[in-house]
Structures are given as structure tokens and as C-alpha cells.
């Protein structure tokens, strides 16, 4: 799993410490999240996405998402 938390955090000029305080976790948890080493709960993922004015889909990239981009189905009315 990879994340774009660092990138989105930079966009809103927020430090790891600020984000940790906002989502009520330790700073190390944010560090491991950014490194893709920690799989957060849906609740934490939602809180982080909300804090960064983003969505869970934008922030978290799973390996199978990367390898098969063509296989995504887009529904059009």
C-alpha cells in the first residue's frame, strides 16, 4: 500500500504533528502511515482524508489499483 498523505499534507501546509493532533493519534502513526507501513482503520483513514480535504481513494493507493488501471470500469449514463 502506498499513500499520498505527505503530498496532500504539503498542499495544506500541515505538519505531521498538526495532522496527528487533528486526528488524535501519535505522530509516529502518521509517519508510518505516510511510509505505507501501517494499515489504518476505516475510521482513521476517513479522519485523515477529512483533515486533508481529500478522499480515502485519493490518499490510499493499493498495489492492485496500480497494476491494473485499464481494468477499471467506468459507468456512464
Amino acid at each position, binding site marked *: 500500500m502506498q499513500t499520498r498523505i505527505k503530498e496532500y499534507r504539503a498542499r495544506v501546509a500541515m505538519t505531521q504533528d498538526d495532522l496527528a*493532533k487533528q486526528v488524535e*493519534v501519535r*505522530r509516529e*502513526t502518521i509517519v*508510518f502511515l505516510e*511510509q505505507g507501513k501501517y*494499515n*489504518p*482503520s476505516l475510521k*482513521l483513514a476517513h479522519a485523515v482524508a477529512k483533515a486533508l480535504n481529500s478522499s480515502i481513494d485519493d490518499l490510499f493507493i493499493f498495489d492492485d489499483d496500480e497494476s491494473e488501471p485499464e481494468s477499471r470500469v467506468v459507468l456512464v449514463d
Partner: protein
Amino acid sequence: MTLRKRNLYRIIIGILMITSGFVTLVWASREAIIGTILLVAGLAFLVTGFVRYKRYGNDPESDERSRKIGAYGLSYVWLTGLFFMFGLFWLDYLNILRLGTQIALALSIVVLAASARLYQVYPFRKGDIE
């Protein structure tokens, strides 16, 4: 950096236990064990309160990651304890190693406490349990 309520309570309990430990030792010298236990436990509360205050300050002491690692760690500790006691039982049953109750219990306490620490160090450094 303000003192969180939890750490304040730890410090207060520590001071109370140390004081009552001293009182017990001075006034009821025959109850030396109780006095000593109160002193040691009080000291542990006091030190924990100060260390956690210094280390975390206003930040949360635990979050979902630390709780997850802690829960997994404890389940591994339980398994380790089970295997250890199973081993002790068979060693005793087969007359390979005969330990008294006190030593067997003391060893179990050491194994459980040491493994509790060990099983948490690695996942904390790695980031997650998986």
C-alpha cells in the same frame, strides 16, 4: 505542557502509597512486607506518571496503532506462557527438572513480563503487526 489527569492521578496515588508505605514501616514494623510492597508500588506509579508526562505531554499516550500492537502482543504472550508452563509441567513430570512452586511461579512471571515487552518492540519499530 499541561499535566494530564491520568498522569496527575498516577502521581497522587504514587505519593499516597509511598507515604502509607513509610507509615506502615515506621508504625507497624512487623508488617515489613506490606510496607515494602506499598513503597515499591508507589514508586512505580510515581515514576510512570512522571515518565509519561515527560514523554507524551499533551499528546495521546495510545492510539489505534499502539492498541492494535498491544493486543496482538498480549495474545502472543498468552501463547508463550502456555507453552512455557506446558514445558515446565513435562520437565517436572519426567523428573528432568524439578522446581519448587515459588521458583516456577517467579520464572513464569519473568517469562510473561519479558515476552510482553519483546513482542511489542518489533512491531512498534516495523509500524504494524501485519
